């Protein structure tokens, strides 16, 4: 069902400020949808409107075909993971995870079994009797995720759940979240600032800026077919050139007034092999080189133009000032509108 969650005409204002205006959005079932957007674009606001925590929200929200817009927070069966974990510090890990089940009429033995299973899944069964203050950030977040997943929510919203964690744990937990999603078949919306994180975890990406949806699609399409200049510059590194600038590089038969996108990886340097049919060749000079470990980013000057490109770090680095031959793959030049 590709319209598992459907938002119709969502409007949110805080005082005089309109943060979300007439937002419409559909989200597929049993998949991870990532909300990606700059700070202040309204991602959290949309999430809080879906969960019912935002009391200023106006509009219709349909979950699994049912209108939930008027339901109170505790009746929506939606889980939310906060960046700050929000564990209950007076309860043990076990009691935190059991908390939601206790509100339902479920037997003690059954609760115990479910909690133990869930703690095993998130690999926290050995910490069942610890208290939140004694856990690391990553462990806290795993408990928080277990606490929400045990409720079998129709929808699980994760608002930058990994932002407070260090890089290594982030990647680990990101992969685990994806694994839980597939194992339990939960529909998730995952908010992040981090493009790489978005690309890695998403089945479906929604890019939001200024309270509006810029583009929605599979990660691959978002990257390779940005719908406008904002999308081209927001996702991934980029060179944006006009048709006339491209003409000066030897690329003809493009509209001179239009703007075009060239991704850094569509440019290569000093190839030994013959250039393929789709490539144009020109000369340039390296004016900057930044080493990212596995790859190096160069900026090449050709007259007044500047081109960004990336090379894998398996050759000797080229020195700043050296003259290079630049090859641009014409087939990968994308027209922006």
């Amino acid at each position: 069902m590709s319209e598992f969650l459907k938002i119709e005409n969502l409007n949110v204002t805080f005082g005089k400020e309109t943060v979300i205006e007439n937002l419409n959005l559909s989200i597929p079932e049993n998949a991870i949808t990532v909300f990606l957007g700059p700070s202040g674009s309204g991602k959290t606001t949309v999430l809080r409107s879906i969960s019912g925590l935002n009391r200023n929200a106006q509009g219709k929200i349909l979950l699994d075909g049912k209108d939930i817009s008027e339901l109170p927070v505790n009746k929506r069966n939606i889980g939310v993971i906060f960046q700050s974990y929000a564990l209950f510090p007076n309860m043990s890990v076990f009691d935190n995870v059991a908390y939601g089940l206790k509100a339902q009429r479920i037997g003690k033995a059954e609760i115990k079994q479910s909690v133990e299973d869930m703690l095993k899944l998130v690999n926290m069964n050995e910490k069942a009797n610890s208290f939140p203050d004694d856990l690391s950030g990553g462990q806290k977040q795993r408990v928080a995720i277990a606490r929400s997943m045990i409720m079998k929510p129709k929808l699980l919203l994760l608002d930058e759940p990994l932002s407070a964690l260090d890089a290594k744990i982030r990647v680990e937990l990101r992969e685990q979240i994806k694994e839980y999603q597939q194992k339990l078949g939960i529909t998730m919306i995952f908010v992040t600032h981090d493009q790489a994180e978005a690309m890695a975890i998403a089945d479906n990406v929604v890019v939001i800026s200024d309270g509006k949806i810029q583009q929605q699609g599979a990660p691959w399409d978002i990257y390779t077919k940005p719908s406008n200049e904002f999308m081209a510059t927001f996702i991934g590194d980029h060179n944006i050139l006009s048709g006339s600038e491209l003409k000066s590089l030897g690329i003809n038969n493009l509209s001179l007034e239009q703007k075009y996108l060239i991704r850094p990886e569509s440019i290569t340097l000093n190839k030994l092999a013959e250039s393929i049919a789709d490539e144009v060749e020109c000369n340039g000079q390296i004016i900057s080189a930044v080493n990212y470990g596995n790859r190096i980013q160069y900026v090449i000057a050709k007259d007044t133009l500047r081109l960004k490109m990336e090379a894998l770090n398996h050759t000797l680095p080229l020195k700043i000032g050296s003259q290079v031959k630049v090859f641009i793959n014409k087939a990968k030049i994308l027209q922006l509108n």
Partner: protein
Amino acid sequence: MKVKKRTPKIILTIIFIYLLLPIVATFLYSISTSWINTVLPEGLTFKWYAQLVFNPEFLNVVLRSLVLSIFTTILGLVIFVPVIFYMNIYNQKLKAKMRYITMLPFIIPGIILVTGLIQLYKDIPIPKIVILVMVLSVMSLPLVYQTLNNVFISKDFKSMFEQSQLLGYGPVKSFMFVIVPNIKTGLIVSTLLLFSAGLGDYVITNLFLGGNYITLKIYMYRLMAVNGNAGSVLTIIYFIMLSILSAILIRTTSKAKKG
């Protein structure tokens, strides 16, 4: 260098003795037969204690003070806890305004407050004791606000409260299960602060109800004028009560800090 290190200790000891001396003297006075022209009391006796404790008037006074303290405490908690909770969870912008309000009891002197209140409620048929309870609890707002607000900003209560609702509990149950256990220390401290505000007030109670409602504190001053020994007994009893309250306060707050 050694002298310097010892100086603070000496100063502290002197201050301690200076503060303790009146209490010791009062205690001595409260157990002396007579102590007028001599350096030390002429004889020791507990008869003043016996006299006071078996005096039915004294029991009435204690009862009145307790009634005043208990109602001040209940009213204070019932008003302040929800307000401070609301401000921290739902409307942080109110906090700036609240800061000014909490300063008011420091700015308005008791006499002006009481005169104003008497004017205001002159024609309204509410028992004065009820108004007194309201005034006393409002007067302790600054301390109670500070205490509870500090507890509320120490943790992310907003997220915890929201999370509890996401997990299926209504707002009232969420408050009981998630907020209350985590602000327990603040609640105990506030209770004691409000209680001692009720117990310790002299100025407002005396101005407001005059001789119609004799509390422990008023009784103490009156007794002092009539019979110094009996007055001292009451002072000592009062001092012990406050010491116990303070001890509980210090223990709860230091426990909270440890974890």
